[in-house]
């Protein structure tokens, strides 16, 4: 008797209304939209103060000057989506840049000098991935160790010598494709490819599964350990690609690790909406966040914020973005 009443009530409920397009968009890409809005607002405000801000040259500076960070953040976003983290990427990029530059100067084919950092990046991160996945050491611990090893190793090996006399053909970041700077093209293409891959392939989706609920992923038949290694290897490849941009931007390669690069990359990923707990976020967000940082850096110079207070203002803006995101989330639930 009771069965029938309950069944009836359930059936009487009409299929739920699907929320509107924008509502869904906002639910799915909320943080990306917040970051994008921040970029737009900044552009609008600063342009009013100084119209040169949106000159083609400045746009190039903003979008392509930090493209290597965005590319590195793509891999980082993937790693964080699986619930891991990598604090060694800055040191890795420093090492890879030296390798790439040395090969170019030593007269190896240019393509090889470009390929090498990608391959070495993948190899180094494969080791990190194996330690994380099979030896079950938390990724922050492994990469903290890797940070020391890479940083120390770089100095031991290079002795701090800069690499100069790079062949002009090697300097791909200074070239243009269809009138657009290569770093910009790299950043956009890689972001879109990675975003597409993470959205439309089973492999890409499995990263969300691993980070979202490892136990469930295992029960679904996703080989977690193999995926963890794979994501680190892919991250290594992106670090290699980032290195190509980093190493070819100027005519000299510094053999030091860019200070705090790893923190910048991680910050870009998390401000872009990648949950530090794993399981959600997109690479579109991390790239937008990188652009936001570049925009802030440029904007503060344009609006004459005292350089002494620059970092404080950047910190404040990051904090504001984080809090805005939290308030948005809370408003939703």
């Amino acid at each position, binding site marked *: *008797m*009771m*069965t029938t*009443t*309950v*069944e009836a*009530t*359930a*059936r*009487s*409920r*009409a*299929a*739920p209304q*699907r*929320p509107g397009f924008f509502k*869904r968009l906002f*639910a799915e890409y909320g943080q990306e939209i917040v970051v994008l809005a921040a970029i737009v607002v900044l552009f609008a405000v600063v342009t009013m103060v100084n119209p040169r801000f949106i000159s083609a040259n400045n746009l190039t500076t903003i979008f392509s000057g930090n493209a290597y960070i965005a590319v590195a953040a793509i891999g980082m976003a993937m790693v964080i989506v699986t619930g891991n983290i990598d604090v060694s990427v800055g040191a890795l990029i420093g090492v890879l840049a030296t390798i790439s530059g040395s090969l170019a100067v030593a007269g190896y084919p240019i393509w090889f000098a470009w390929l090498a950092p990608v391959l070495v990046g993948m190899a180094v991160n494969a080791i990190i991935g194996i330690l994380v996945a099979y030896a079950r050491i938390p990724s922050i611990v492994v990469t903290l160790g890797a940070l020391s090893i890479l940083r120390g190793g770089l100095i031991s090996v290079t002795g701090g010598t800069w690499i100069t006399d790079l062949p002009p053909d090697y300097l791909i970041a200074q070239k243009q494709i269809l009138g657009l700077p290569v770093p910009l093209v790299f950043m956009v293409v890689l972001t879109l490819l990675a975003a*597409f891959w993470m*959205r*439309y*392939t*089973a492999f890409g*989706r*499995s990263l*969300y*599964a691993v980070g*979202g*609920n490892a*136990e*469930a*992923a*295992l*029960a*679904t*038949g*996703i*080989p977690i350990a193999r995926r963890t290694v794979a994501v680190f290897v892919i991250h290594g490849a992106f670090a290699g690609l980032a290195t190509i941009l980093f190493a070819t931007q100027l005519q000299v390669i510094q053999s030091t690790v860019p200070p705090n690069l790893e923190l910048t990359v991680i910050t870009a990923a998390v401000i872009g909406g990648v*949950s530090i707990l794993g*399981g*959600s976020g997109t690479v579109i967000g991390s790239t937008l966040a990188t652009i936001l940082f570049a925009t802030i850096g440029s904007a503060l110079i344009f609006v004459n914020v005292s350089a002494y207070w620059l970092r404080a203002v950047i910190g404040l803006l990051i904090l504001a973005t984080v809090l805005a995101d939290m308030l948005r989330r809370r408003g939703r639930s």
Partner: protein
Amino acid sequence: MSSPVAYVSLTGMSKSFGGVKVLKEVSFDVRPGEVHALLGENGAGKSTLIKMMSGLYTPDAGTIVVDGKELKFSSTRDAGAAGIATVYQELLLFPELSVAENVFLGNYPRTSAGIIDWAEVRRRTRDLLDQLDTYDLDVDTKVLSLSVAQRQRVEIAKALSKNARILIMDEPTASLVESDVQRLMAVVRQLRERGVGIVYVSHRMPEIFALADRVTVLRDGAHVATRDIGEVDENQLVSMMVGRSIESLFPKADASIGETVLKVTNLNHGRHVRDISFELKRGEILGIAGLVGSGRTELALTLFGMTPATSGEIAMEGKVVRIGSPRQARDLGIAYVPEDRGQQGLVKAMAIRKNVSMATIERLSSGIFIKAGEEAQRALDAVKRLSIRCRNIGQPVGELSGGNQQKVVIAKWLETKPKVLILDEPTRGVDVGAKAEIHTIMGELVKQGVAIIMISSELPEVLGMSDRVLVISGGCITGEIARAEATPERVGAAMTAHRTGEAA
């Protein structure tokens, strides 16, 4: 409909963990189009057996024959390929992903270009959910915002999406309310009609007799018996499970009901606690019945200070009090044994001793220092009093069985000497023996003058244990029924009373 030829048969399955044999040469089979119930107390080996069937564990010995071929499962994928799907008790879903994606994860339909065809994923999910009479679920919703029953539907849809020939359901009703249980049973029958073989693990006898075609009982890792359901009755099954007979399932103790200890007037919090008023007396067991989402748990959380009341009045022993945090509730003598034992009740990695003292740690301290000796003594007492089965009080709680874990949570709150004890689903996921023990403990407590509020989805439990039943629906009280008048029909009617109106 039920064919006599088994689709899957397991023979001589054995498994040990750390030298302990948890499964000893068990044989088990499932035929297409039958519901085969698997029974046993916690620790009897049911989970191990089904995990082997679903490819999560590899057996130490034994063979698995599927459709006439002997197979070895080295992962859940292998089992899936053989047509075996599992709906786990813990509902292994991805909270941040959509319903549709959860259904097809790892098994996506592709477009001709080889990429995931999201339109198809959504369409087919819609179809599957409709087949399960689940019209009320948007396929784009993130799973984190779904109720337990809805999540379970998603799990079943997932199993169906793989065209499973065998569906293993591990305690599917453990966390469902009565109405959802009925819906689930309808779904199970529908699947059976389609020729799917179902392994149904449950502690609940009525469901087993309503659904099962055959039943297999395990005890201590060994096979006890496999029978057609018509050959056995409830008492036989219970004694097969526990190896002895159980007198009465709901030993309602007679306690003298005293003066009012808790008086709630027009209590409100959000949409789920609306204008609630009731009284609770010493030595009384007040049962609270209601559907999931009716506001039962929310009421408890408000009384416990987790989600403080926005308006209304709570009076303890005649004094009006404000409860803004669990701490204040505890200090006023209100204790809450939560619904989700693993997440909310226990710190599984910590020792029994530390869990038992957790709510009273300040009282067990002089200054800021914990009196370790006294703490240990109290834990030892609790273990003895509630007959918690464990190696020693230093054993991490996570290693105990469900029933013993629940007793640890209860022990923790008894340490606070509560005047009002709120038990939210006190016997969920607890085996028959432990269930009876918990009921006995409740009886002893009311004799000592403790007032108990018991929330339960199991109607027989509510009816069997309560002095009075409070029915909640849509956040409001829709019925207050004395023990004598409390029949399943009356309570059931009150549970759905306002519901239809609210949903519109």
